[in-house]
């Protein structure tokens, strides 16, 4: 998609959401649901409440969590795809743990790792890593053997085969997965930043909520939405530069 179309799409979506929001606010007519105008008028106070710092802290946690899941998941996924015996060993484990809601493990992780960033990042990794493992393994297994033939006839090394065939074949699936992972990580922030911290956009919203500062709470919601949107656009750009051949 061209940048122009994308901006148009964004503006359309933004406008529609705000119209719906505005109508709801007018119909409900309660202090818990202010109109978008009220919220936007209040935005200039946000610099004082250091919203940007909260966003940066959340960004750090999301990037660390998603990054670790991606690296770990890719390594394990590749191992399982390439080696029959590793697959036999790890597959039951992945299969068994996949449907367990990892959020239920939050207390355990907190007890083991404390209330700091390590438990927050760990819970993000626990939730994300399994879907990355499965996505990578399946993407590699879906490459047909024929795809490898021309490069094998050139005497390519294992590393060259990985670089020229495997990696580009699984890249589109990886980027889709990255998109999902970031969306999930953002929503995990809400309970991961609900304890043991005074920083982060999740904390900011929960805190404003607790102080019955509804305008501040909505400002936080708008901020995290824009934040998520920016990350999505970055992935779009990455997708267009690396997977342009698919379009």
């Amino acid at each position: 998609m061209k940048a122009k179309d994308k901006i148009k799409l964004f503006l359309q979506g933004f406008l529609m959401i705000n119209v719906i929001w505005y109508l709801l606010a007018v119909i409900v007519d309660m202090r818990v649901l202010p109109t978008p105008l009220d919220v936007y008028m209040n935005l200039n106070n946000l610099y004082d409440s250091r919203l940007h710092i909260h966003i940066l802290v959340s960004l750090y946690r999301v990037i660390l969590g998603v990054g670790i899941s991606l690296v770990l998941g890719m390594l394990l996924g590749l191992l399982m795809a390439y080696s029959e015996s590793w697959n036999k060993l790890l597959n039951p484990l992945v299969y068994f743990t996949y449907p367990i809601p990892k959020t239920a493990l939050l207390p355990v992780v907190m007890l083991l790792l404390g209330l700091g960033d390590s438990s927050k990042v760990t819970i993000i990794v626990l939730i994300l890593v399994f879907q990355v493992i499965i996505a990578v393994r399946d993407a590699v297994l879906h490459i047909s053997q024929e795809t490898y033939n021309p490069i094998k006839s050139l005497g390519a090394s294992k590393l060259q085969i990985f670089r020229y065939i495997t990696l580009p074949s699984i890249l589109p699936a990886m980027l889709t997965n990255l998109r999902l992972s970031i969306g999930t990580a953002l929503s995990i922030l809400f309970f991961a930043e609900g304890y043991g911290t005074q920083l982060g956009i999740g904390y900011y919203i929960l805190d404003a909520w607790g102080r019955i500062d509804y305008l501040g709470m909505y400002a936080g919601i708008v901020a995290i939405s824009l934040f998520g949107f920016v990350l999505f656009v970055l992935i779009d750009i990455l997708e267009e530069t690396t997977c342009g051949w698919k379009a």
Partner: protein
Amino acid sequence: MLNIENLSVNYKSNRNMVHALGPVAMKIETGDIIAVIGPSGCGKSTLLHVLSGIIKDYDGIVTLNGTTLNPKVHDIGFIPQNFGLLPWKNVEKNCLLSLKIKKRIIDSKLIERMEYIMDKLNIQDLKDRYPKELSGGQKQRVAIARAFIMNPDLLLMDEPFSALDALTREEAQELFIDVWNQYKPTTVFVTHSIEEAIYMGKKIVIMSHCPGAIIETIDNPLFNTEDLRQNEEYLKLSSYIRSISKRGWKV
């Protein structure tokens, strides 16, 4: 010279052994072009997979210029039936792939050679396109260019023209022979078409039903003749090969 002695291939698929090819013996002189023709499933692709180093698990001896065939040692150009272009690389990068894998230094001489071959095959203007944006005939010409650019010791093609419609096929065959005559790499190609075998094969190897063995090797007097179809010899030779096929590809 490509020397094949006692070559036999078995596929192992869940405890079953499929004897797919052989035993086969062949001697192919450097600079020859060999057409292999035979019934479906007789092991033609299997033969090419051995010669291209894709199948390493075979019985017998295969040597190229005196050393055991090895894609790491020899430069082998392999054009599979689906052309084998990488969808994520544009035409130019696809053409350079073999040189990159072989870690050749891409100097001005190589670039010149590439430009020349691309020009001959009429794909100069397609350099920046991805395979998805090409027609079947164009993809095929890119695959041929890629193979010739690396100046292979051995060129292998699996039914190179069968995915093309009749008119495109004739044009592509002519272009191919034109480029081939210039560089004359040792070539083995597989085909279903008797006409193609007679038009493009200096020698024609006829194979039997699975597991494929060689029924007969014909020295083709008609190789490289223009206006083939008007030639009387052509009718004789093609009806002779057709008779072998009618008899059921038996010795």
